[in-house]
Protein backbone atom coordinates (compact mmCIF):
# COMPACT_ATOMS: atom_id res chain seq x y z
CA UNK A 1 0.00 0.00 0.00
CA UNK A 2 1.36 3.40 -0.89
CA UNK A 3 -0.09 6.71 0.05
CA UNK A 4 1.15 9.91 -1.46
CA UNK A 5 0.26 13.42 -0.48
CA UNK A 6 -1.89 13.92 -3.56
CA UNK A 7 -4.58 11.45 -2.68
CA UNK A 8 -6.79 11.29 0.38
CA UNK A 9 -4.98 9.95 3.43
CA UNK A 10 -7.48 7.19 4.10
CA UNK A 11 -6.62 3.82 2.67
CA UNK A 12 -9.71 3.73 0.53
CA UNK A 13 -12.73 5.81 -0.28
CA UNK A 14 -15.49 5.81 2.30
CA UNK A 15 -17.54 2.66 1.96
CA UNK A 16 -20.59 2.45 4.11
CA UNK A 17 -21.47 -0.83 5.72
CA UNK A 18 -17.86 -1.92 6.14
CA UNK A 19 -16.65 -0.94 9.59
CA UNK A 20 -12.96 -0.17 10.08
CA UNK A 21 -13.14 -0.12 13.85
CA UNK A 22 -15.60 -2.24 15.77
CA UNK A 23 -16.13 -2.52 19.50
CA UNK A 24 -18.40 -5.37 20.58
CA UNK A 25 -19.73 -5.69 24.14
CA UNK A 26 -16.59 -4.14 25.59
CA UNK A 27 -16.33 -4.15 29.39
CA UNK A 28 -13.61 -2.70 31.56
CA UNK A 29 -13.20 -2.34 35.30
CA UNK A 30 -10.74 -0.37 37.39
CA UNK A 31 -10.96 -2.45 40.53
CA UNK A 32 -14.63 -2.19 41.49
CA UNK A 33 -15.32 0.68 39.12
CA UNK A 34 -17.06 -0.36 35.90
CA UNK A 35 -15.51 2.26 33.58
CA UNK A 36 -16.66 0.82 30.25
CA UNK A 37 -20.06 -0.85 30.20
CA UNK A 38 -21.52 -2.72 27.24
CA UNK A 39 -19.74 -0.58 24.68
CA UNK A 40 -20.84 -1.28 21.11
CA UNK A 41 -19.52 1.04 18.46
CA UNK A 42 -18.71 0.67 14.83
CA UNK A 43 -16.81 3.24 12.83
CA UNK A 44 -16.81 3.10 9.05
CA UNK A 45 -13.96 3.88 6.71
CA UNK A 46 -13.48 7.60 6.29
CA UNK A 47 -15.91 8.32 9.07
CA UNK A 48 -15.22 10.98 11.71
CA UNK A 49 -16.72 10.12 15.09
CA UNK A 50 -16.59 12.59 17.95
CA UNK A 51 -16.93 11.23 21.47
CA UNK A 52 -18.12 13.71 24.06
CA UNK A 53 -19.28 13.51 27.64
CA UNK A 54 -18.57 14.73 31.15
CA UNK A 55 -15.21 13.97 32.75
CA UNK A 56 -15.03 10.50 34.19
CA UNK A 57 -17.48 9.22 31.59
CA UNK A 58 -14.91 6.80 30.16
CA UNK A 59 -14.43 8.52 26.82
CA UNK A 60 -10.63 8.71 27.07
CA UNK A 61 -10.47 5.13 28.28
CA UNK A 62 -12.60 4.07 25.31
CA UNK A 63 -10.22 5.85 22.94
CA UNK A 64 -7.19 4.21 24.55
CA UNK A 65 -8.62 0.69 24.32
CA UNK A 66 -8.55 0.84 20.53
CA UNK A 67 -4.75 0.54 20.43
CA UNK A 68 -4.71 -1.38 23.71
CA UNK A 69 -2.95 1.27 25.75
CA UNK A 70 -5.78 0.19 28.05
CA UNK A 71 -6.53 -3.53 27.95
CA UNK A 72 -10.18 -4.53 28.21
CA UNK A 73 -11.67 -7.16 30.50
CA UNK A 74 -14.15 -8.66 28.08
CA UNK A 75 -15.68 -8.06 24.68
CA UNK A 76 -13.95 -7.64 21.37
CA UNK A 77 -12.23 -4.89 19.45
CA UNK A 78 -11.64 -5.30 15.71
CA UNK A 79 -9.62 -3.03 13.49
CA UNK A 80 -9.92 -3.64 9.77
CA UNK A 81 -11.54 -6.98 10.49
CA UNK A 82 -8.74 -8.27 12.73
CA UNK A 83 -9.12 -8.74 16.48
CA UNK A 84 -6.75 -6.77 18.68
CA UNK A 85 -3.70 -8.93 19.46
CA UNK A 86 -2.41 -9.52 22.98
CA UNK A 87 0.93 -8.01 24.04
CA UNK A 88 3.99 -8.58 21.86
CA UNK A 89 5.11 -8.00 18.29
CA UNK A 90 1.65 -8.52 16.79
CA UNK A 91 0.28 -5.77 19.03
CA UNK A 92 3.16 -3.48 18.02
CA UNK A 93 2.28 -4.07 14.35
CA UNK A 94 -1.35 -3.29 15.08
CA UNK A 95 -0.43 -0.06 16.86
CA UNK A 96 1.67 1.05 13.89
CA UNK A 97 -1.56 1.11 11.87
CA UNK A 98 -3.50 3.10 14.47
CA UNK A 99 -2.36 6.68 14.92
CA UNK A 100 -2.77 8.32 18.28
CA UNK A 101 -2.65 11.93 19.41
CA UNK A 102 -2.48 12.60 23.14
CA UNK A 103 -3.76 15.43 25.28
CA UNK A 104 -0.23 16.18 26.50
CA UNK A 105 1.42 15.80 23.04
CA UNK A 106 4.07 13.38 24.34
CA UNK A 107 6.65 14.33 21.74
CA UNK A 108 9.97 12.58 22.38
CA UNK A 109 11.75 15.22 24.47
CA UNK A 110 15.28 14.18 23.48
CA UNK A 111 14.64 14.17 19.72
CA UNK A 112 14.32 17.07 17.30
CA UNK A 113 10.98 17.75 15.64
CA UNK A 114 12.16 16.06 12.45
CA UNK A 115 13.47 13.03 14.36
CA UNK A 116 10.17 12.80 16.23
CA UNK A 117 8.28 12.42 12.97
CA UNK A 118 10.83 10.20 11.18
CA UNK A 119 11.61 7.84 14.09
CA UNK A 120 8.60 5.54 13.65
CA UNK A 121 8.97 5.15 9.86
CA UNK A 122 12.70 4.41 10.26
CA UNK A 123 12.58 2.03 13.20
CA UNK A 124 9.14 0.47 12.87
CA UNK A 125 8.49 0.62 9.12
CA UNK A 126 12.21 0.12 8.32
CA UNK A 127 12.19 2.93 5.78
CA UNK A 128 15.46 4.43 4.58
CA UNK A 129 16.47 7.47 6.65
CA UNK A 130 16.51 9.84 3.65
CA UNK A 131 13.06 8.82 2.44
CA UNK A 132 11.59 8.92 5.94
CA UNK A 133 13.01 12.37 6.62
CA UNK A 134 11.84 13.71 3.26
CA UNK A 135 8.34 12.46 4.00
CA UNK A 136 8.57 13.86 7.54
CA UNK A 137 9.43 17.29 6.12
CA UNK A 138 6.41 17.12 3.81
CA UNK A 139 4.15 16.30 6.74
CA UNK A 140 5.66 19.06 8.88
CA UNK A 141 5.04 21.42 6.01
CA UNK A 142 1.45 20.26 5.79
CA UNK A 143 0.82 20.97 9.49
CA UNK A 144 2.67 24.29 9.19
CA UNK A 145 5.77 23.72 11.33
CA UNK A 146 8.36 22.88 8.66
CA UNK A 147 10.60 25.77 9.75
CA UNK A 148 10.87 24.26 13.27
CA UNK A 149 12.22 20.90 12.07
CA UNK A 150 15.56 21.11 13.83
CA UNK A 151 14.30 22.40 17.18
CA UNK A 152 13.46 20.34 20.25
CA UNK A 153 9.84 19.93 21.43
CA UNK A 154 10.30 22.15 24.50
CA UNK A 155 11.20 25.05 22.19
CA UNK A 156 7.78 24.94 20.50
CA UNK A 157 4.41 26.25 21.64
CA UNK A 158 1.74 23.79 22.68
CA UNK A 159 -0.18 24.23 19.46
CA UNK A 160 2.95 23.62 17.40
CA UNK A 161 3.83 20.56 19.47
CA UNK A 162 0.39 19.09 18.97
CA UNK A 163 0.60 19.64 15.21
CA UNK A 164 3.95 17.86 15.22
CA UNK A 165 2.32 15.04 17.19
CA UNK A 166 -0.31 14.75 14.45
CA UNK A 167 2.43 14.68 11.81
CA UNK A 168 4.25 11.98 13.80
CA UNK A 169 1.11 9.83 13.82
CA UNK A 170 0.47 10.48 10.11
CA UNK A 171 4.03 9.48 9.21
CA UNK A 172 3.08 5.88 10.02
CA UNK A 173 0.33 6.08 7.39
CA UNK A 174 -2.29 4.81 9.81
CA UNK A 175 -5.64 3.34 8.89
CA UNK A 176 -7.36 5.27 11.64
CA UNK A 177 -6.43 8.17 13.90
CA UNK A 178 -7.36 8.40 17.57
CA UNK A 179 -7.42 11.82 19.23
CA UNK A 180 -7.57 11.83 23.02
CA UNK A 181 -8.64 15.37 23.97
CA UNK A 182 -6.09 16.91 21.57
CA UNK A 183 -6.87 20.53 22.47
CA UNK A 184 -7.57 20.28 26.20
CA UNK A 185 -4.02 21.21 27.25
CA UNK A 186 -3.79 24.16 24.88
CA UNK A 187 -4.13 27.88 25.41
CA UNK A 188 -7.29 29.16 23.70
CA UNK A 189 -5.47 30.98 20.91
CA UNK A 190 -3.71 27.76 19.90
CA UNK A 191 -6.77 25.55 19.71
CA UNK A 192 -7.80 26.73 16.27
CA UNK A 193 -4.47 25.92 14.59
CA UNK A 194 -4.76 22.32 15.80
CA UNK A 195 -8.43 22.01 14.88
CA UNK A 196 -7.69 23.36 11.39
CA UNK A 197 -5.21 20.54 10.84
CA UNK A 198 -7.77 18.04 12.09
CA UNK A 199 -10.52 19.41 9.85
CA UNK A 200 -8.14 19.19 6.89
CA UNK A 201 -7.40 15.59 7.81
CA UNK A 202 -11.11 14.80 8.00
CA UNK A 203 -11.67 16.37 4.60
CA UNK A 204 -8.94 14.18 3.12
CA UNK A 205 -10.95 11.14 4.18
CA UNK A 206 -9.04 9.98 7.25
CA UNK A 207 -10.99 7.77 9.62
CA UNK A 208 -10.97 9.58 12.96
CA UNK A 209 -12.17 8.94 16.47
CA UNK A 210 -11.94 12.17 18.41
CA UNK A 211 -12.51 12.63 22.12
CA UNK A 212 -13.03 16.36 22.55
CA UNK A 213 -14.95 19.17 24.16
CA UNK A 214 -14.74 21.24 20.97
CA UNK A 215 -18.35 21.42 19.88
CA UNK A 216 -17.39 23.59 16.91
CA UNK A 217 -15.19 20.81 15.56
CA UNK A 218 -17.95 18.27 16.15
CA UNK A 219 -20.38 20.38 14.14
CA UNK A 220 -17.96 21.08 11.27
CA UNK A 221 -16.15 17.80 10.83
CA UNK A 222 -18.00 14.97 12.56
CA UNK A 223 -20.21 12.47 10.78
CA UNK A 224 -21.46 11.22 14.12
CA UNK A 225 -21.42 12.25 17.74
CA UNK A 226 -21.23 9.65 20.48
CA UNK A 227 -22.31 10.81 23.92
CA UNK A 228 -20.94 8.94 26.92
CA UNK A 229 -21.71 9.16 30.62
CA UNK A 230 -20.84 6.83 33.50
CA UNK A 231 -19.01 4.38 31.24
CA UNK A 232 -21.91 3.91 28.84
CA UNK A 233 -22.74 5.17 25.38
CA UNK A 234 -26.03 6.94 25.94
CA UNK A 235 -26.56 8.44 22.54
CA UNK A 236 -25.28 8.27 18.99
CA UNK A 237 -26.51 10.76 16.40
CA UNK A 238 -25.40 13.06 13.63
CA UNK A 239 -24.09 16.34 15.06
CA UNK A 240 -27.04 18.48 13.99
CA UNK A 241 -29.59 16.18 15.59
CA UNK A 242 -27.51 15.69 18.71
CA UNK A 243 -26.89 19.35 19.39
CA UNK A 244 -30.42 20.50 18.60
CA UNK A 245 -32.48 17.55 19.84
CA UNK A 246 -30.53 15.47 22.36
CA UNK A 247 -32.61 12.50 23.48
CA UNK A 248 -31.29 11.71 26.94
CA UNK A 249 -31.59 13.91 30.03
CA UNK A 250 -27.86 13.47 30.68
CA UNK A 251 -27.01 14.83 27.24
CA UNK A 252 -29.43 17.75 27.59
CA UNK A 253 -27.96 18.51 31.00
CA UNK A 254 -24.39 18.25 29.67
CA UNK A 255 -25.05 20.43 26.63
CA UNK A 256 -26.87 22.95 28.80
CA UNK A 257 -23.79 23.27 30.97
CA UNK A 258 -21.22 23.65 28.24
CA UNK A 259 -23.15 25.68 25.68
CA UNK A 260 -24.54 28.33 27.99
CA UNK A 261 -21.31 30.32 28.30
Amino acid at each position, binding site marked *: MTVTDDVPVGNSAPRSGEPLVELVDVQKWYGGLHVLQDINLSVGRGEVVVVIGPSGSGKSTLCRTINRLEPIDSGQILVDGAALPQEGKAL*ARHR*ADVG*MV*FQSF*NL*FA*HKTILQNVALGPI*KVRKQAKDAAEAHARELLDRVGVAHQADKYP*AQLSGGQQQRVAIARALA*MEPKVMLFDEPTSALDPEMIKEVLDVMVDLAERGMTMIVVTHEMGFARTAANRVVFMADGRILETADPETFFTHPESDRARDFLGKILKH
Partner: protein
Amino acid sequence: MEDVFSNFDLVLKAFWLTVQLAFLSGVAAMLLGTLLAAMRVGPVAVLRGVASTYVTLVRNTPLLVMCVFVFVASPNLGLFVDTPFLLKGTIAISLYTAPFVAEAIRSGINAVPVGQAEAARAIGMTFAQNMRHVVLPQAFRATVPPLASTLIAMTKNTSVVAVFGLTEATARMRDFVNDNADDTIAIFLVFALGYIILVELISLAALGLERHWKAAR
Protein backbone atom coordinates in the same frame (compact mmCIF):
# COMPACT_ATOMS: atom_id res chain seq x y z
CA MET B 1 60.17 9.72 50.50
CA GLU B 2 63.06 8.88 48.22
CA ASP B 3 61.73 5.44 47.49
CA VAL B 4 58.27 6.40 46.26
CA PHE B 5 59.63 9.04 43.88
CA SER B 6 62.66 7.13 42.63
CA ASN B 7 60.32 4.24 41.85
CA PHE B 8 57.57 6.39 40.43
CA ASP B 9 57.22 4.11 37.43
CA LEU B 10 55.90 1.47 39.84
CA VAL B 11 53.30 3.95 41.11
CA LEU B 12 52.20 4.75 37.56
CA LYS B 13 52.10 1.08 36.64
CA ALA B 14 49.94 0.33 39.66
CA PHE B 15 47.54 3.16 38.83
CA TRP B 16 47.45 2.00 35.21
CA LEU B 17 46.15 -1.34 36.49
CA THR B 18 43.60 0.51 38.64
CA VAL B 19 42.48 2.45 35.56
CA GLN B 20 42.14 -0.75 33.52
CA LEU B 21 40.15 -2.42 36.30
CA ALA B 22 37.90 0.61 36.70
CA PHE B 23 37.36 1.08 32.96
CA LEU B 24 36.66 -2.57 32.14
CA SER B 25 34.48 -3.05 35.23
CA GLY B 26 32.67 0.22 34.53
CA VAL B 27 31.79 -0.77 30.97
CA ALA B 28 30.73 -4.28 32.01
CA ALA B 29 28.71 -3.02 34.99
CA MET B 30 26.95 -0.43 32.82
CA LEU B 31 25.98 -3.06 30.24
CA LEU B 32 24.83 -5.61 32.80
CA GLY B 33 23.15 -2.95 34.93
CA THR B 34 21.22 -1.56 31.94
CA LEU B 35 20.11 -5.06 31.00
CA LEU B 36 18.97 -5.73 34.59
CA ALA B 37 17.08 -2.42 34.72
CA ALA B 38 15.34 -3.16 31.39
CA MET B 39 14.44 -6.65 32.64
CA ARG B 40 12.95 -5.18 35.81
CA VAL B 41 10.64 -2.79 33.96
CA GLY B 42 9.94 -5.23 31.11
CA PRO B 43 6.79 -7.17 30.27
CA VAL B 44 8.19 -10.66 30.97
CA ALA B 45 7.44 -11.76 34.54
CA VAL B 46 10.20 -14.38 34.68
CA LEU B 47 12.87 -11.84 33.67
CA ARG B 48 11.53 -9.34 36.19
CA GLY B 49 11.91 -12.00 38.87
CA VAL B 50 15.42 -12.99 37.79
CA ALA B 51 16.59 -9.37 37.72
CA SER B 52 15.14 -8.39 41.06
CA THR B 53 16.52 -11.55 42.70
CA TYR B 54 19.96 -10.76 41.32
CA VAL B 55 19.77 -7.18 42.56
CA THR B 56 18.70 -8.30 46.03
CA LEU B 57 21.30 -11.06 46.36
CA VAL B 58 24.29 -9.16 45.04
CA ARG B 59 23.50 -5.76 46.51
CA ASN B 60 23.31 -7.38 49.95
CA THR B 61 26.70 -9.11 49.57
CA PRO B 62 29.97 -7.34 50.42
CA LEU B 63 32.43 -6.89 47.54
CA LEU B 64 35.05 -8.83 49.44
CA VAL B 65 32.71 -11.83 49.58
CA MET B 66 32.06 -11.50 45.84
CA CYS B 67 35.86 -11.47 45.29
CA VAL B 68 36.29 -14.59 47.43
CA PHE B 69 33.64 -16.22 45.25
CA VAL B 70 35.28 -15.28 41.94
CA PHE B 71 38.94 -15.75 42.94
CA VAL B 72 38.74 -18.64 45.41
CA ALA B 73 35.41 -20.44 45.39
CA SER B 74 34.45 -20.51 41.72
CA PRO B 75 37.60 -22.40 40.53
CA ASN B 76 36.37 -25.27 42.72
CA LEU B 77 33.19 -25.20 40.65
CA GLY B 78 35.27 -25.29 37.47
CA LEU B 79 34.59 -21.60 36.78
CA PHE B 80 37.25 -18.99 35.91
CA VAL B 81 40.03 -21.60 36.36
CA ASP B 82 42.60 -20.22 33.93
CA THR B 83 41.17 -16.73 33.85
CA PRO B 84 43.82 -13.96 34.16
CA PHE B 85 43.68 -12.04 37.43
CA LEU B 86 42.78 -8.77 35.73
CA LEU B 87 39.75 -10.45 34.19
CA LYS B 88 38.79 -12.09 37.48
CA GLY B 89 38.97 -8.71 39.19
CA THR B 90 36.86 -7.17 36.45
CA ILE B 91 34.28 -9.94 36.75
CA ALA B 92 34.02 -9.60 40.54
CA ILE B 93 33.80 -5.81 40.51
CA SER B 94 31.33 -5.59 37.63
CA LEU B 95 29.06 -8.33 38.99
CA TYR B 96 29.06 -6.45 42.29
CA THR B 97 28.50 -2.98 40.77
CA ALA B 98 25.82 -3.95 38.20
CA PRO B 99 22.88 -3.95 40.66
CA PHE B 100 23.77 -0.44 41.82
CA VAL B 101 23.89 0.69 38.20
CA ALA B 102 20.58 -1.08 37.58
CA GLU B 103 18.88 0.69 40.46
CA ALA B 104 20.27 4.07 39.40
CA ILE B 105 18.98 3.51 35.86
CA ARG B 106 15.64 2.27 37.14
CA SER B 107 15.23 5.50 39.08
CA GLY B 108 16.01 7.32 35.83
CA ILE B 109 13.44 5.23 33.94
CA ASN B 110 10.83 6.10 36.56
CA ALA B 111 11.66 9.77 36.05
CA VAL B 112 10.77 9.60 32.32
CA PRO B 113 7.13 10.67 31.96
CA VAL B 114 4.89 7.68 31.19
CA GLY B 115 3.55 9.52 28.13
CA GLN B 116 6.93 9.12 26.42
CA ALA B 117 6.73 5.34 26.54
CA GLU B 118 3.03 5.44 25.60
CA ALA B 119 3.77 7.55 22.54
CA ALA B 120 6.46 5.09 21.50
CA ARG B 121 4.09 2.16 21.92
CA ALA B 122 1.42 4.06 20.00
CA ILE B 123 3.62 4.31 16.89
CA GLY B 124 4.21 0.56 17.03
CA MET B 125 7.56 0.26 18.77
CA THR B 126 8.33 -3.03 20.49
CA PHE B 127 9.46 -2.99 24.12
CA ALA B 128 13.11 -3.26 23.05
CA GLN B 129 12.80 -0.38 20.55
CA ASN B 130 10.96 1.70 23.11
CA MET B 131 13.75 1.17 25.64
CA ARG B 132 16.54 1.74 23.16
CA HIS B 133 15.25 4.80 21.31
CA VAL B 134 12.92 6.57 23.72
CA VAL B 135 13.07 5.57 27.38
CA LEU B 136 16.72 4.76 28.10
CA PRO B 137 18.27 7.78 26.33
CA GLN B 138 16.10 10.01 28.52
CA ALA B 139 16.58 7.84 31.61
CA PHE B 140 20.37 8.10 31.28
CA ARG B 141 20.12 11.88 31.44
CA ALA B 142 18.29 11.76 34.73
CA THR B 143 20.70 9.08 35.88
CA VAL B 144 23.99 10.91 35.40
CA PRO B 145 24.47 12.13 39.02
CA PRO B 146 23.63 8.82 40.76
CA LEU B 147 25.55 6.86 38.09
CA ALA B 148 28.60 9.06 38.63
CA SER B 149 28.41 8.27 42.36
CA THR B 150 28.15 4.57 41.61
CA LEU B 151 31.12 4.64 39.23
CA ILE B 152 33.19 6.66 41.71
CA ALA B 153 32.44 4.14 44.46
CA MET B 154 33.36 1.37 42.00
CA THR B 155 36.68 3.00 41.11
CA LYS B 156 37.62 3.14 44.77
CA ASN B 157 36.31 -0.41 45.25
CA THR B 158 38.93 -1.67 42.79
CA SER B 159 41.29 -1.45 45.77
CA VAL B 160 39.66 -4.54 47.26
CA VAL B 161 41.32 -6.81 44.69
CA ALA B 162 44.69 -5.83 46.19
CA VAL B 163 44.03 -8.70 48.57
CA PHE B 164 43.91 -11.18 45.69
CA GLY B 165 47.30 -10.69 44.11
CA LEU B 166 46.62 -7.84 41.72
CA THR B 167 49.24 -5.15 42.18
CA GLU B 168 47.00 -2.17 41.59
CA ALA B 169 47.42 1.13 43.38
CA THR B 170 46.46 0.05 46.89
CA ALA B 171 48.55 -3.12 46.76
CA ARG B 172 51.54 -1.11 45.53
CA MET B 173 50.97 1.41 48.30
CA ARG B 174 51.03 -1.39 50.85
CA ASP B 175 54.35 -2.62 49.38
CA PHE B 176 55.84 0.86 49.64
CA VAL B 177 54.63 1.24 53.22
CA ASN B 178 56.10 -2.13 54.18
CA ASP B 179 59.49 -1.14 52.76
CA ASN B 180 59.53 2.45 54.10
CA ALA B 181 58.00 2.51 57.55
CA ASP B 182 59.22 6.09 58.20
CA ASP B 183 57.75 7.57 55.02
CA THR B 184 54.13 6.49 55.33
CA ILE B 185 52.64 9.99 55.20
CA ALA B 186 54.29 10.87 51.90
CA ILE B 187 53.34 7.51 50.42
CA PHE B 188 49.77 7.94 51.59
CA LEU B 189 49.57 11.42 50.06
CA VAL B 190 50.93 10.26 46.70
CA PHE B 191 48.41 7.42 46.42
CA ALA B 192 45.49 9.42 47.80
CA LEU B 193 46.21 12.12 45.22
CA GLY B 194 46.24 9.48 42.50
CA TYR B 195 42.78 8.26 43.49
CA ILE B 196 41.49 11.82 43.77
CA ILE B 197 42.64 12.57 40.21
CA LEU B 198 40.98 9.41 38.85
CA VAL B 199 37.73 10.08 40.64
CA GLU B 200 37.72 13.74 39.68
CA LEU B 201 37.94 12.72 36.03
CA ILE B 202 34.69 10.79 36.45
CA SER B 203 33.04 13.77 38.17
CA LEU B 204 34.16 16.09 35.37
CA ALA B 205 32.89 13.70 32.71
CA ALA B 206 29.53 13.56 34.48
CA LEU B 207 29.38 17.34 34.70
CA GLY B 208 30.23 17.62 31.01
CA LEU B 209 27.46 15.17 30.09
CA GLU B 210 24.94 17.06 32.21
CA ARG B 211 25.85 20.35 30.54
CA HIS B 212 25.79 18.79 27.07
CA TRP B 213 22.32 17.34 27.58
CA LYS B 214 20.98 20.43 29.24
CA ALA B 215 21.91 22.34 26.07
CA ALA B 216 20.16 19.82 23.83
CA ARG B 217 16.60 20.44 24.93
